[in-house]
């Protein structure tokens, strides 16, 4: 018992002292976890010559996460940040039932996870698999422990200490106006790139696939139905309507198979450009319609599917334990000539896998929304660090699924149409003759059979990661449920949930981007700040949609293949935002007297800056046309000037001109991103050095207010917390009128009952 016995009438303490007593069973448990982790890592990383079973990836990941969460995250929280559970959180001080809501830690964990995780951790690892399984696995697990989860945790903590300030506001307050403006520009541009690239993944997964298009199209009437149900029939009954929605969604997937076999198939067979226009119209409409109609119900559906699918995936991988086909490294890790994206392991693996290892976008959620809902400071470890570890595990599962499919199939799917010609024969010729990997072969018949198994027209050049992952998942899930007969269903099930997550991000992202733009314009023209002012809302939405829509259109029509030219930009943008977030953290460390711990955000910041700047440097200055945007542009310009009518995958003058145009846009964005990161880093460095020399605490933390409530800190309460909770329950029963103990408190206690 960590708490002193108290008089029944006095208020119980608001925090327990977390002291560790190392008992023998506890020591043995951690030794066992460490040994299991060690064995798993040895098998993954060092044992060669035999195929590796996926289960070792699960063990390696989970034991590493457990050790990191127990020791490193705890060290950061207690020694570095010095969280203080006697201090009231913003949710306790400012509770208003709207933005500031005390939320049960387990529920908040769900909210936070649903907000940070989407299709990102499912896509990046699939593309990075072209280098073999080891680079991706190492970066996902080591990266999350020392970079991604640390970033999420620190940003969450600092935002909480500032009443839930956003990342942009913190950059302005802690670094200064230059850093602040650069951060704002970075956030807006990055949002647009992310929306465009995610939408590109959807388009590539749905093009020429009547089954996929039908099922995804049906999500719109399903969401509308749910919206009207919640608005007019039974307001607030979210679970029942989501249950109905999920059932309809499954029906839509099954019906997609019927549609694909019927006369309607042609109607739902759309090419990429048509799909882009459909998405643009959809994105604009969703952003100006009231949220209750489309956005909110789609979000419920997406959250339901997210939790369900990820649980299903974990169970399936553990039960099926597939054997990996991919080797630890392929030659592409070193020669940088991979077809999914160009560039060698360093720096491009760290750019391609952002979500799941280190994702700057999370800083937008860890600041602003989540910190306003925490009940206790110490819960930042569970929500910030733990939430990101969970996303990392999703990324590991995606990597396992992608590396467990046949290598020849993997490379046929992930090479751009420019090199495969889009046909099974062309893809087989490319894989067998030009790919340059020994032992990797495929026949046109095998490719056609693979496409038939999932009832798709073709699987050749289905870039973007989603179809590859769907193949991997369908093989794993079909082993478990339904066998070969259900392979096509599981493939389209996987495509469906990836598309659903992405469309939810596109909906919400367009709207958030619209508000950012309105807010920015509002600084000079106040009327724009009124979010209900229709002309402003429409115009701002149109600008955001046009921005991501034009990049998307450029991507799908790119003769060189949109994914391999745009995905690096997406990764660089996301890692740039991580650099902003970590730079803000470093600055706050220096200003708040934590200089001796500055390596905690400092090491990931330096690593991230080196990676991002090296990648940007190569994208801008590399003389290798397959990597450098400007080098490639020059190559095409010279060819055009020489009167040539085709070059590489560009088979016409129009296509060659498109390459010249696209590389200009991509190259310019690369320069913009690199400049932004340099400005922010220099400004943060300047402020940090000044703060360190000054030796005073100058940071803008909100004043200390004593807490008057109690809540456990981890997922499962410790025995001390359980005892204290009982004390509180007894006290609350005697003091039913206590405002603090009861405000919003229904969520603070265990599920009702327990009998």
């Amino acid at each position, binding site marked *: 018992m960590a708490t002193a016995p108290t008089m029944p009438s006095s208020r119980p303490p608001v925090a327990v002292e977390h002291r560790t007593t190392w008992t023998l069973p506890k020591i043995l448990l951690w030794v066992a976890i460490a040994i299991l982790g060690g064995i798993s890592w040895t098998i993954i990383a060092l044992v060669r010559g035999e195929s590796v079973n996926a289960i070792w990836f699960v063990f390696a990941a989970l034991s590493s996460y457990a050790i990191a969460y127990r020791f490193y995250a705890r060290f950061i929280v207690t020694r570095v940040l010095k969280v203080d559970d006697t201090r009231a959180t913003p949710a306790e001080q400012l509770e208003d*039932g*709207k*933005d500031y809501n005390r*939320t*049960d830690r*387990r*529920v908040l964990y*769900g*909210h936070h996870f649903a*907000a940070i*995780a*989407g*299709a*990102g*951790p499912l896509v990046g690892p699939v593309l990075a698999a072209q280098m073999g399984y080891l680079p991706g696995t190492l970066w996902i697990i080591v990266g999350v422990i020392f970079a991604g989860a640390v970033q999420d945790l620190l940003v969450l903590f600092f935002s909480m200490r500032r009443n839930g300030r956003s990342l942009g506001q913190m950059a302005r307050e802690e670094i200064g106006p230059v850093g602040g403006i650069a951060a704002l520009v970075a956030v807006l541009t990055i949002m647009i790139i*992310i929306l465009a690239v*995610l939408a590109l993944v959807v388009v590539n997964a749905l093009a020429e696939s009547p089954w996929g298009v039908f099922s995804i199209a049906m999500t719109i009437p399903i969401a509308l139905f749910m919206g009207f149900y*919640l*608005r007019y029939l039974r*307001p*607030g009954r*979210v*679970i029942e309507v*989501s249950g109905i929605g999920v059932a309809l969604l499954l029906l839509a997937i099954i019906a997609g198979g019927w549609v694909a076999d019927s006369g309607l198939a042609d109607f739902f067979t759309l090419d990429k450009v048509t799909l882009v226009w459909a998405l643009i119209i959809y994105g604009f409409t969703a952003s100006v319609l*009231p*949220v*209750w109609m489309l*956005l*909110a119900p789609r*979000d419920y559906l997406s*959250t339901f599917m997210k939790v369900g699918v990820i649980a299903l995936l974990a169970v399936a991988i553990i039960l099926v334990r597939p054997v990996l086909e991919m080797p630890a490294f392929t030659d592409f890790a070193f020669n940088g000539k991979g077809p999914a994206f160009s560039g060698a392991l360093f720096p491009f693996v760290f750019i391609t896998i*952002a*979500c799941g290892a280190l*994702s700057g*976008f*999370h800083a*937008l*959620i860890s600041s602003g*929304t989540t910190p306003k809902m925490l009940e206790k400071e110490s819960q930042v470890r569970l929500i910030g660090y733990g939430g990101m570890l969970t996303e990392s595990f999703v990324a590991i599962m995606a990597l396992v699924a992608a590396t467990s499919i046949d290598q020849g199939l993997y490379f046929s799917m992930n090479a751009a149409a420019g090199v495969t010609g889009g046909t099974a024969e062309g893809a087989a010729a490319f894989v067998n003759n030009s790919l340059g990997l020994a032992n990797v072969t495929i026949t046109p018949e095998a490719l056609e059979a693979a496409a038939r198994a999932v009832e798709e027209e073709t699987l050749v050049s289905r870039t973007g990661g989603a179809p590859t992952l769907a193949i991997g998942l369908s093989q794993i899930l079909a082993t478990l449920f339904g066998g070969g007969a259900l392979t096509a269903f599981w493939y389209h099930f996987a495509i469906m949930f990836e598309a659903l997550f992405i469309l*939810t*991000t596109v*909906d*919400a*992202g367009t*709207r*958030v981007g619209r*508000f950012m733009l309105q807010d920015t314009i509002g600084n000079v023209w106040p009327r724009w700040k009124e*979010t209900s002012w229709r002309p402003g809302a429409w115009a701002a939405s149109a600008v955001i949609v046009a921005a991501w829509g034009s990049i998307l259109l450029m991507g799908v029509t790119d003769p060189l293949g949109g994914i391999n030219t745009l995905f690096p930009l997406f990764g660089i943008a*996301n890692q740039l935002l991580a650099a902003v977030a970590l730079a803000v953290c470093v600055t706050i460390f220096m200003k708040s007297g934590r200089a001796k711990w500055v390596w905690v955000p400092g090491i990931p910041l330096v690593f991230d800056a080196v990676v991002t700047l090296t990648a940007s440097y190569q994208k801008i200055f590399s003389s290798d046309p397959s990597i450098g945007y400007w080098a490639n542009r020059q190559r095409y310009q010279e060819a055009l000037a020489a009167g040539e009518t085709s070059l590489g995958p560009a088979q016409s003058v129009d296509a060659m001109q498109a390459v010249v145009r696209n590389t200009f846009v991509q190259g310019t964005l690369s320069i913009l991103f690199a400049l932004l990161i340099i400005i922010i880093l220099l400004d943060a460095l300047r402020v940090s050095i000044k703060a360190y020399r000054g030796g005073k605490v100058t940071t803008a933390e909100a004043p200390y207010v004593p807490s008057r409530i109690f809540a456990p800190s981890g997922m499962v309460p410790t025995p001390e917390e359980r005892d204290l909770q009982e004390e509180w329950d007894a006290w609350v029963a005697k003091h*039913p*009128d206590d*405002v603090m103990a*009861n*405000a*919003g408190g*229904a*969520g603070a206690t265990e*599920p*009702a*009952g327990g009998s």
Partner: protein
Amino acid sequence: MRRLPRAVMWYLRELFGENAYDKYVAHLARHHPGQQPMSRREFEWERTDRLDRNPGARCC
């Protein structure tokens, strides 16, 4: 074993905010006795419409 479905239901209700109305009514009854609570419909409409102004970003 009977606790598990109950705990799952509790979790889902909390996660999706289905019990927000019950909490609101309990809150009013305790702190502002005599004040007439909004109807469920009014309450839910207001709750959703707040998202119009603050939809919350969704990451990738």
